[in-house]
């Protein structure tokens, strides 16, 4: 067995956990490209994703360039929200006088980027679709896609000289998700990292878990936060902004990605951009205090880390050390805060705030309205669960 195929099989097996329905993928390409896509599709079929021939029964579509003769049917499926991953979209392969694919992908295809010069930098951002991918290597000339729609999440960017160009992006296009990868050189199409991106993009668009995807912690300039706040994005589809100066979770949103480019690409800078709606927020300073809810407790941020992939944040509240672990709820409808408290000044108070879009459950500490007290002076822990309203609370 060729090493690459073996790699893909091992990889694909990982995407097919026991008991889970395999993802059914239909491959679509113009007739001239069918063989190319079939080779790529074979590796998927050998693994956990099932290749089926009827697009209308597929969980996700994998489209190289465009559907060619099957344009009408494919457009209908996409318009109805069928998840899709498009590789190197060619508007001509969509029989698309109305600009359907431009609207669906959320960008306009232009001439060769940087006059066809190779990309000096290929920069991967922190997105679940890129889990485990170290690098993309390609010297191909790529078309420049411009005018990205507001809701596109750019996840791979190319740089040559002063110019940057989008190389891969994902979006929630109405009811269905779509991903677009611009580079499609023959060498890339058989590379392990590229196949991994394709497979993970299929899973992401179909809202399936991506094996091995981990939470991402990025310190940046977040909206409605002190500079240096943390953006913690979970692959389950929830984002949390933790502000170490205010001392709590400033807000949480439906999303697994934060765009830091507003800060990077201009001199003046701007806060990072989140995608999705905010369902939880707090404003009052220092929600954690020792002794009494309004005590003037000394506060110090001690640092953060990842323990077995779980983000942890450490604080000192009036001499009492707290380690807070953040986890997403498995269904992505919220998150938990597990606060492990060292022995010290008691009680430790956590002040909550009224939420109209989230329910807040406290376990392991007493609660009176928005005042939560951890009354033991010994070491212990308590947990706060935040769940977006409108979703059922699991038992």
């Amino acid at each position, binding site marked *: 067995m060729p090493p690459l195929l073996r790699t893909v099989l091992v990889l694909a097996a990982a995407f097919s956990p026991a008991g889970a329905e395999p993802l059914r993928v239909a491959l679509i390409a113009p007739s001239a490209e069918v063989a190319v896509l079939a080779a790529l599709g074979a590796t998927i079929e050998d693994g956990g994703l099932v290749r089926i021939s009827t697009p209308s029964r597929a969980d996700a579509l994998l489209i190289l360039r465009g559907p060619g003769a099957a344009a009408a049917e494919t457009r209908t499926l996409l318009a109805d929200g069928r998840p899709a991953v498009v590789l190197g979209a060619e508007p001509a392969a969509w029989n698309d006088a109305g600009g359907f694919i431009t609207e669906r992908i959320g960008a306009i295809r232009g001439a060769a980027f940087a006059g066809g010069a190779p990309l000096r*930098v290929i920069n991967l951002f*922190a997105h679940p679709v890129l889990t485990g991918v170290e690098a993309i290597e390609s010297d191909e000339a790529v078309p420049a896609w411009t005018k990205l729609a507001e809701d596109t999440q750019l996840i791979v960017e190319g*740089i040559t000289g002063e110019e940057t160009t989008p190389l891969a992006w994902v979006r929630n296009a109405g009811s269905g998700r779509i991903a677009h990868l611009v580079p499609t050189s023959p060498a890339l199409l058989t590379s392990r990292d590229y196949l991994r991106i394709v497979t993970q993009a299929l899973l992401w668009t179909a809202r399936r878990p991506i094996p091995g995807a981990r939470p991402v912690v990025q310190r*940046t*300039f977040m909206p409605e936060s002190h500079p240096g706040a943390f953006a913690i994005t979970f692959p389950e589809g929830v984002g949390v902004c933790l502000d170490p100066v205010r001392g709590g979770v400033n807000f949480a949103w439906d999303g697994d990605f934060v765009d830091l480019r507003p800060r*990077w690409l201009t001199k003046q800078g701007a806060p990072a951009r989140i995608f999705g709606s905010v369902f939880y927020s707090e404003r009052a300073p220092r929600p954690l205090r020792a002794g009494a809810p309004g005590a003037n407790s000394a506060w110090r941020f001690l640092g953060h*880390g990842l323990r077995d992939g779980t983000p942890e944040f450490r604080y000192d509240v009036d001499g009492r050390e707290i380690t807070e672990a953040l986890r997403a709820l498995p269904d992505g409808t919220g998150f938990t805060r597990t606060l492990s408290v060292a022995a010290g000044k008691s009680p430790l108070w956590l002040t909550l705030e009224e939420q109209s879009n989230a329910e807040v459950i406290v376990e392991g500490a007493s609660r009176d309205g928005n005042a939560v007290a951890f009354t033991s002076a010994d070491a212990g822990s308590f947990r706060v669960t935040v769940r977006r309203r409108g979703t059922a609370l699991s038992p």
Partner: protein
Amino acid sequence: MTHGLPSILVIATVVALALVPHLEAAAPATGRVSGSVRQAGTEASVRFAQVRIEGAALTGRENNQIIQKIGADGRYRLDVPPGTYELWAAAPDHEEVLKRVELSAGAALQVDLFLPPLPVSPYRVETVPLPRQMVGELSGVAFTPTGTLVVTTRRGEVWIRGANGNRWRRFAAGLYEPFGVVAPAEDEILVIQRPEITRLRDRDGDGVADEFHTVADDWGITGSYHEFSYGLARDRAGNLYASSGLCSFGRGVELPWVRGPLQTAQYLPWPGPGAVPDGHRSVARYQGWAFRVSPEGRFETFASGFRQPLGVGISPEDELFISDCAGAWVPTSTFTHVERGGFYGHADSLKWHPDFKDRRLTHTEITALRRPPSVYLPRGVLGTSPGQPTWDTTSGRFGPFGGQVFMGDVSAILTRIDLERVAGAWQGAAFPFLRGGGLRLGGMHQAFGPDGALYLAQTVRGWMPTGGNEGLQRVVWNGSDPVEVRTLRLSPRGFTLGFTVPMGATAGNPDHYRVQRFRYLHHPVDGSLRADNIEVPVTAARLGADGRTVELDLLELQPGHVHELTVDAAVTDRAGHPLLNRVAYYNVNRLLSGETQPGPTRLAAARPAALRPGDPRAGAEVYRQNCLVCHQADGRGSREAGTPDFTLPGGIRVKSDAELFRIVAEGRVPEPPAVNPMPPWSNVLTEQSIQDVVAHLRTTYGAAGR
């Protein structure tokens, strides 16, 4: 690598004795001089060469000159009236050549001109390849004791390259604008990010940091785009040193999320009419301060009075030095030995000073409180925004400058500093070390590697075009001696120069040394012009028996002044090689006696001479020293620097000499397609030098209407 500074003039007289006389009855009114321009030694063609002929017989032409560009055939031909001329040839990266020509009517003279290549520096600049997925905005560089290379990027990453290979790995991501790194051990990497100093560890051994311990975060931050935390340096006891720059507040930024208290009013309100000339203010706690953090994590403020103290370094003797950038209260960029409790000039940081925050010190009191910099870095010649100081501890592997300081700059300049203790305080001289030659912009952090090379981390994003200007370069010495003034030290009557190699007899001629002294003004204006600029006659030059030292006696030596030393191009080593750099700036804060106050001067009666007409030859030298980096040797400008093409129609050709003088002196906002502002040069160049450089531009690129 070639060097752009020195110029040796090869002067020869060619007497035109009508070698090929025209014998026609009616002798023409002109003679002809023609020939080829080639590289000396190789006779290879020289790109962008031009010849210039100048003489009184050309009265009526701009500057009595005709300039001709040399085409691909390498030949020139000039028809001029009879007379005596100077014929020049010049080209980038080559010495200029000058010949004296006497030409009679009807004569045809062949003069071939051979341009010697500029002295080749034994230092070459190499670009270090970076991983393709790294955006090369390198903001910090360090080596571990075992030689592992560690860099930070402004996008928040830490990358590591092992000592024994070229493989890079990403050690950390998601940091907030790291701006410096120290790596005292393989498993201990310390980074200063905008909000804190952080210790990074890899607990589970997978090669990626998973613990980010907050070592210190006791200073204020506002979220303004222009508000940086600088550093990082570590002494042998494990203390960390860092600093916080002022916040750019000129346009009244909204700052609703400030860490710590906010004070937007200036400590000393701007006294002048109109807008505050420099919007940098200490609006959050300890902006404009240097800090120290003990190995146990105890934070303490260390010194105040900084503007943008982006170079933080620790000497081999564990003393703190900081470079600061020119602006209000910082007359030109500085390099300063920083002592605990010291105040170094910028008034606004006093808002947070326990002794002065509630006492409104006056301008005079603030100036009296200020400790002077060890070295001034004149704007332009020695850059604009100096970076991290790094001591040469390579035991000779970087050449003959062991113990001296090297410092990058936002502009493509590497400065060398020679310090000495005078009456108990550090002061000394700054030299240009490397310019051009492939050295990129933005080299603000650096470190010596285990190979003895100097590695420069470069980032310019937000200030200059980034394309090709960022990343990692190293400066490598090829083992041959550079011809340089190695040391410039104060003596009882002047200065003692120490050379890297034995010098020829011309080094013993006092006429080959020119010293000017001046002061900089400590005031809230954005930068300072040279004040009290005056030439100090060199009365004697004594060359040591080994040729490696020259003692210069000055007519008088006054403390409190910068002394600019310019060595004539005639000073060469014993083999005739010129100096690679011929200018140095010694900041005489105090004399050997300890005297810091200037006494009565014998030079006071001297008056600055009236301005002479511009001398294009002198202007060419001024251009090479000050303008070439951005405007290029061929005057075509550079996309990277955003400078215009002088050779195009319009542009400088349609501007009067007075307009050009004003632009050079005062600077100006960019005129498309240029994108960067032209900085004002009147605080660097004398009026005569500006007059000269305008004449050079005019003669080289043409006058209005041409």
